[in-house]
């Protein structure tokens, strides 16, 4: 199996007539961990939602491909089946549908795509193991999907889905917000446990905290709807020590948001 690769080329997107992404270039391959950092309102979540195919955003230019296939031509579910996964910043609540029923159905769809069938016993074993790994209470499986979950529970539940669905490229949007240090470490361990040549990861955050647990190979900074700077882990360390002002100064801007 060749390494998965997600390619984003000069991506532009708008929402309700407001241009948000203004030409994003990025390539994430199996075996790599990328981090996108940047202050609030710079277009990070928009990028992740556009990759996944959120219906509210309109792509106005550029390309996205996954293993050479045109992602922009795919329905949302086809993107998931192509190997993409997005841990959302604000996951939806689905009343009346238990977490385990949902996970089972999602897993069944995924396996169907791969030409195999879900074995209930295996699924149950995997589910229990992953719940344990994430130190989630067992009854989380029987609760309605995200309904009444605390912020931290929702984030862990997103990671639980990632562990079970085994995507090739995962995007984690602010999966660290609302997590205490213990939870951060658990989530970090879970992501690290997936590290392989068949798994690439894009971590979106505006803190460096989570990156202490998941060491990124590449660090990018997003401002004004573009990636304005890329580097290795030393870029993250510099941002941690000095903040973003020096980057703004370099770029000669004062407002880093998409309105800037």
């Amino acid at each position: 199996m060749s390494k998965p690769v997600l390619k984003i080329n000069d991506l532009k997107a708008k929402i309700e007539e407001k241009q948000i992404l203004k030409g994003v270039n990025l390539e994430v391959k199996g075996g790599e961990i990328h981090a996108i950092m940047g202050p609030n309102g710079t277009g990070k979540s928009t990028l992740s939602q556009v990759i996944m195919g959120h219906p509210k955003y309109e792509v106005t230019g550029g390309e996205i491909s996954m293993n050479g296939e045109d992602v922009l031509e795919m329905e949302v579910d086809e993107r998931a089946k192509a190997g993409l996964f997005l841990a959302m910043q604000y996951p939806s609540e689905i009343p009346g549908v238990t977490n385990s029923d949902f996970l089972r159905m999602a897993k069944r769809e995924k396996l169907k795509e791969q030409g195999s069938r879900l074995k209930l016993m295996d699924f149950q074993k995997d589910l229990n193991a992953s719940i344990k790994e994430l130190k989630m209470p067992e009854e989380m499986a029987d609760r309605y999907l995200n309904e009444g979950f605390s912020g931290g529970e929702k984030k862990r539940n997103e990671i639980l889905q990632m562990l079970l669905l085994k995507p090739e490229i995962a995007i984690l949007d602010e999966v660290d917000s609302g997590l205490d240090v213990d939870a951060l470490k658990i989530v970090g361990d879970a992501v690290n446990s997936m590290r392989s040549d068949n798994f690439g990861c894009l971590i979106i955050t505006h803190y460096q905290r989570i990156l202490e647990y998941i060491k990124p190979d590449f660090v990018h900074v997003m401002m004004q709807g573009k990636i304005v700077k890329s580097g290795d882990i030393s870029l993250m360390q510099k941002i941690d020590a000095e903040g973003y002002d020096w980057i703004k100064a370099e770029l000669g801007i004062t407002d880093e948001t998409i309105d800037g």
Partner: protein
Amino acid sequence: MSKTDALPLAERTNIKDWDFTNLTLKEVTHNSVDKSNLIPENAKNAIIIVDGSVVVKDLQAGISIEESKEYSNLENRLITLNKEKANSKLSIKVEKNKKMDEPIYIAYVAKERSLIHQTEITLEQGAEANIVENFKSEASLNMNILSKVNIFANANLESSVINSLNGENTIYYHRLTEVHADASLDSSNFILNDSNLVFEDFTHLVGKGSEADVKTVAISDKKQKQNITVRIENLAPHSNGNIVNYGVVKDDAHLAFNGIGKIHKGMNAGDNQQESRLLNLSKTAEAIANPFLLIDEGDITAGHAASIGQIDEEQVYYLMSRGMPKIEAEKLIVTGFLTPFANSIKSKTLREALLTSIEEKLG
């Protein structure tokens, strides 16, 4: 126009031009039927009526059947029509203090002619029974069904009515239940057909300490028009009524739920509650919740809650992002919406019937 000439009220739905009177009336008799899909295999009590002929009758001791004698004491043009043209009748009685521990399954099948039917169900004092009635059709025939239920003192009835009279047809269904002192009704209606329908389920709490819990679910799609009225009247002190309605509409369907609670004067210490939840899956469908509370007594409790929701695009997106095709995502959201209703249904078979219908209507 005298009261007898009027059409059912069917509030919020215009039924003036519906072809209720276009009935297929020919003589047919049947003496056999394929039981599968009508009655569970292991049923201990089963009655199957095909086009008016009783073709299966397996009953345990303590239950008897005969031709129906009584129907509604209410009157309208369609009830009169039924009384004139009835071609299928059943009266079933559970004897005094008889506690049936096995359900009684009744299937009414319309094969070749319109079902113009009357059912009378009587639970004598202290009796207990679980009756599952299944209305099925094999052709597009218009139907008119009257039902009268008497639950005498201290008796308890668990009743389920599954209406899967399929076809491009028009149905009038009317039921009146009287609940006597310290008796109870736990009733669920599953309206899972493809018809245009006026459905009236009226309960009179006539005895002190009587109770009625009436739950109804309907799924309307395509060009279906359905009007459902569930009415509970407190006609005795210390009586409790509870109405729960769940509906899903899609395509160009119209579904109106009228919930009516009426507490008569002097009927103190009563309770009358109702709740209607509707989910509308399309911009061209119409979902209506129309609650009424008519209260002529001060010393009571009563309340109503209603909500009409749209399917949430974010939810669909979220589920699709996990690899579920859109149609599966919508089905899952609808199933979740109906979960509180399904959880209130004791019978596994009926919960499964509801899921099957979701599959069929949303598939």
